[in-house]
């Protein structure tokens, strides 16, 4: 298996799906260039018609994606930074998410939105936000948050082939993370969690970049005799509740690590699910380790204080297992 990085994984997924299906095309701001490298080289292979630089018109081109999907194509729309999703929420939440249902099942929206999210080093409040929780509450959207190159590739390919609107959130810090990635048609189904480390004493459900931090914390905890299971849901909608509940049934303790601001986070949602359906398994309070409820600040020390690190995960674990 070749070792590639997160960005290369995106690039391969796009390239393979574009080769496979002429209905797949990519549009977004400067995708011909690919600021982070994800779309680099695509225009050379597929031409300007299928790799389209858009004007700065997020609602316009996010909505053009909806229309092109309704007309039968399979658009992959790039929103450079997740924070800019706020500029096209109507097209995603009122149109893409609802059109199939409102049309009584007529419309098929095979439509993917990709974006970079998360605190990536002094990008400040308007370029660092974790914006998936806002879409959790909107039925009709699938939400994918890969934590490494192999999942990134397999999930993005599944997202593009999915006949529904899918939002793919790519953490900006993961770009250079390397990993072995299966060659060929590597698909990861949407809705299937992955146990990234097995453990007995507590379950850490970790999302996106938090998987790395959780693994780091698990390593530290292991040395202290605490055996942590790290579970990556990989997709928030659909959510693999069963795997989460099974893990909690085994461990009796749950931490959810999420870079979103704690209030209204995906961690809150998962906590609520377990506090209902997994209540009897729980031996301890459910802890959310998430960003503080303030915008992401600019200065490195401030940013680090706001977003969750391995230390905060480990501390929460010690509290639970202490």
């Amino acid at each position, binding site marked *: 298996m070749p070792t590639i990085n997160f960005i290369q994984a995106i690039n391969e997924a796009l390239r393979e799906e574009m080769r496979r299906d002429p209905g797949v095309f990519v549009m977004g701001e400067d995708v011909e260039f690919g600021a982070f490298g994800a779309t680099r080289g695509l225009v050379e292979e597929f031409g300007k018609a299928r790799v389209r630089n858009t004007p700065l018109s997020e609602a316009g081109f996010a909505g053009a994606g909806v229309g092109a999907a309704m*007309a039968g194509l399979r658009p992959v729309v790039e929103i450079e930074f997740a924070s800019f999703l706020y500029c096209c929420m109507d*097209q995603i939440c*009122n149109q893409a998410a609802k*059109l199939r*249902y409102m049309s009584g099942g007529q419309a098929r929206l095979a439509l993917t939105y990709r974006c970079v999210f998360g605190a990536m080093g002094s990008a400040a409040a308007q370029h660092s936000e974790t914006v998936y929780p806002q879409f959790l509450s909107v039925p009709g959207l699938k939400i994918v948050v890969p934590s490494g190159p192999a999942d990134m590739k397999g999930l993005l390919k599944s997202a593009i082939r999915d006949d529904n609107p899918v939002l793919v959130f790519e953490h900006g810090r993961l770009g250079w993370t390397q990993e072995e990635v299966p060659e060929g048609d590597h698909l990861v189904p949407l809705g299937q969690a992955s146990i990234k480390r097995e453990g007995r004493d507590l379950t850490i459900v970790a999302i996106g970049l938090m998987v790395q931090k959780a693994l780091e914390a698990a390593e530290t905890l292991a040395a202290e005799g605490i055996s942590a299971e790290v579970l990556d849901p990989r997709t928030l909608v659909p959510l693999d509740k069963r795997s989460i509940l099974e893990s909690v049934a085994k461990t009796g303790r749950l931490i959810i690590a999420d870079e979103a601001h704690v209030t209204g986070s995906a961690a809150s949602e998962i906590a609520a699910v377990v506090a209902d359906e997994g209540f009897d398994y729980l031996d301890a309070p459910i802890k959310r380790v998430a960003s503080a409820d303030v915008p992401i600040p600019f200065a490195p020390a401030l940013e680090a204080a706001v977003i969750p690190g391995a230390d905060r995960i480990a501390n929460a674990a010690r509290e639970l297992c202490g």
Partner: protein
Amino acid sequence: MKIDGLPRELLVGMYRTMRTIRRFEERIKELFFMGEIPGFVHASIGEEAVPTGVCSALDPSDRITSNHRGHGHLIAKGGKLRPMMAELFGRRTGYCKGKGGSMHVVDLSIGILGANGIVGAGIPIATGSALASQLTGKKEVSVAFFGDGAANEGTFHESANLAAVWKLPVIFVCENNAYAEWTPISEASAVSDIAIRGQAYGMPGIAVDGNDVCAVYRAAREAVARARAGSGPTLLECKTYRWEGHVVGEEAMLAGKEYRSAEDLAQWKLRCPIERLATALKEAGAATAEELAEIDSRIEKELEDAVTYAKQSEQADPSEAFTDLFA
């Protein structure tokens, strides 16, 4: 009103369409007040020439997006009365199985990408539909219908620019009925001619008498030809007026407050698009009063058939609320 040069069949067809829209909406107004139709209903009575003229220039494989005031667009594009009526009644035999209602009717089989409850939201969707045609090399045209109010939404601007710079086969049809809800265009837009906005995108901006179905048709035909030829989008402003309230039953909302003059309304009623075409047809000897009456009575039958169909259709079953979310 000039009908010369237009084939009789087209003209009579346009009469039939306009008349169908008019009667459909008059009928649903009654049904709304009788409590048969729930939700919000927006009537386009008086504006029938716009969808009719535009859609008469389209092929069945062309596509449209509509807005909250959509019955006319849907009927003109070929929407069937039975499933439309059933949808407005909220029945499972409706276009959307009762899930959409008046503001969300869709018929993908005939290129109706949807009415829309969000003002301005259909414009990017039509633009994307046109992009699909360009990408696949199909010679289809897409049309976005929207109001003067919607022309102040950012989506109009972004879509128009996108379409122009990419030379997409899309037509932006602005139904300028002089009001958005109860606010006159003079208080909402710095320009009274929306067509002038075409210049901001290097796009032809054409204004026509929106109550002259032939004028609308001719302008649309030209825009369609332009689009099919790959020469890009057109902004087509049709000046018209709505005879009814913004929403059926608005009187209760306004609590007696007036927002437009009875005189204006009376003036516009004198320019009824249906009457004008009927008169022109009769004057030109293209149709007799009897022929038109015959059409009218056939429309009544179709309409009653649709109402009966809707009334007799089963209610949607509560369990159906939970299907159709994902493909």
